[in-house]
């Protein structure tokens, strides 16, 4: 039984394995640009948010929590960023697959996955150099802000 589950899990990962390669870790200067773009998008919409930017290894590089943001947004934003870096894909990709149900529900068993919108890989010159995670509003709003941040380096 265990083998069947593990096999199915591996199949689930392999099925969606991402060819994206990791690049050099994001620099602080690059991270500041991503943060500025994300903050601008959040302010435009009057969102209070926690925003985390991690390097290609999923380790924190830059974080800020706007005034009045719930404190748990630290954890959620960091986990969204980690998931996007580790699986080389946005949280929304998992969210959409889960919505289809069936075999893809196995995603819920994958290590550290945050299957919600608001986590985006940061890609420069075709390589993943880090990721951004956003928390504080609805998943869709978090996603808008995360994508605005990631787009700053495109």
């Amino acid at each position: 039984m265990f083998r069947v589950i593990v096999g199915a899990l591996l199949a689930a990962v392999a099925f969606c394995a991402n060819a994206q390669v990791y690049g050099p870790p994001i620099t602080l200067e690059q991270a500041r640009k991503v943060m500025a773009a994300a903050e601008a998008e959040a302010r435009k919409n009057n969102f209070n948010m926690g925003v985390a930017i991690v390097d290609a290894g999923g380790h924190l590089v830059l974080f800020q929590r706007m005034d009045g943001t719930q404190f748990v947004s630290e954890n959620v934003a960091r986990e969204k960023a980690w998931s996007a870096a580790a699986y080389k894909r946005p949280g929304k990709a998992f969210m959409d697959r889960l919505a289809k149900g069936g075999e893809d529900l196995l995603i819920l068993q994958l290590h550290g996955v945050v299957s919600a919108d608001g986590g985006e890989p940061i890609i420069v010159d075709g390589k993943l150099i880090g990721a951004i995670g956003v928390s504080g509003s609805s998943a869709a709003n978090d996603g808008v802000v995360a994508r605005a941040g990631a787009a700053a380096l495109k």
Partner: protein
Amino acid sequence: MKTRPELTLADCERVAAAAVAQAQRNQWVVAIAILDDGGHLLHFVRMDGATPANAAIAVEKARTAALSRRTSGSWEERVKAGRTSMLKMPGILPVQGGVPIMVDGTCIGGVGVSGVQSHEDEQIAQVGIDALLKR
């Protein structure tokens, strides 16, 4: 009713900017964490070249200071004096480099720094706090 001050994003940016400038003046590379008085992350900066370990250590030093309302260095001193039981205190990293942010006797948060020698880490944290409180 008792009221107390609260760190804003602008306050955190001021602390972080002063701390980064102090590190750069000395060509030091560090991670800097600023937490609120509940021990929750408000602001974080890791300079290029600072390690993932520095990132985690900076947060733990800041948490130690924010929650105990004293420097993490003071906990290190107690351990050095022979109180080895202090190594088992919950949520305490007894290593110099974490400083509480005190306003009129009330702790409103903590700053933790990791990357260079621990007395230098503490100096960076203090410079950051001074930029906020001594102006």
